[in-house]
């Protein structure tokens, strides 16, 4: 399930920091790693996870790769919230109707 993957990907604080940096604009790996308390290979690993989760995309630019937020991935996140309320409100509807039926509060 892609949305679950997206949320799992953002559970790690460093990964979320990487993602938030990209939210401000596209960056190559080297600049992304600058100032982060992890090694550059670790940043690359985080980017790989974010990419697999559909949250970021990359493209070659000369000899380096530039990463940016994948708008489709963000769309997925909003879709998850949408789905969360679907499930929760379904539970509400079921409870209201259960009680209404019990009390004979029917049309």
């Amino acid at each position, binding site marked *: 399930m892609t949305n679950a993957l997206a949320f799992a990907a953002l559970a790690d604080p460093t990964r979320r920091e990487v993602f938030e940096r990209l939210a401000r604009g596209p960056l190559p790996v080297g600049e992304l790693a600058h100032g982060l308390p992890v090694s550059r290979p670790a940043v690359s690993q985080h980017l790989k996870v974010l990419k697999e989760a559909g949250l970021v995309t990359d493209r070659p630019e000369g000899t380096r790769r530039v990463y*940016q937020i994948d708008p489709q991935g963000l769309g997925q996140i909003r879709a998850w919230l949408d789905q969360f309320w679907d499930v929760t409100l379904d539970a509400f509807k079921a409870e209201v109707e259960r009680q*209404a039926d019990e009390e004979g509060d029917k*049309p």
Partner: protein
Amino acid sequence: MSQTITPAPIRKSFTVRATPQKAFEVFTAGHHLWWPKSHSIGDAPLRKAIIEPRAGGRWYSITEDDVEHDWGDVLVWEPPARLVLAWRLNGQFTYDPDLLTEVDVRFAEAGAGLTRVDFEHRGLEAFGDSAAADAIRAGMNQGWGLILDSFQTVANA
């Protein structure tokens, strides 16, 4: 190149087989009866979720370890027509009195014994004051996202 993310509100409309009075009562006084127990904060399982019945009232939960967790508060209390809740949980599932997103629920009679419910969760951009809003919001959702699959399995059983 920069990217501004302005998320659209979440909107839901549906009809329930009950009067507006009943629907409002179950949404508020019966909150804990339908809120998924898995969707909570704190270190212990959810015991009860509470919406205090007045404008300015608290919206909070009590976990099995007797700890209370604020979620937000009641902005509009107009039974049985309308309820607006302030959702003030930030990206770390922590109560932040300065954070404001709004959950607006309207109940309107839609024929004998039927109620149309119009639901909106808006102001989602408040989860962050920058383009990183979605990342922060995603963090908030993360804890609940992981259990959604299992909940759906139960709900669809």
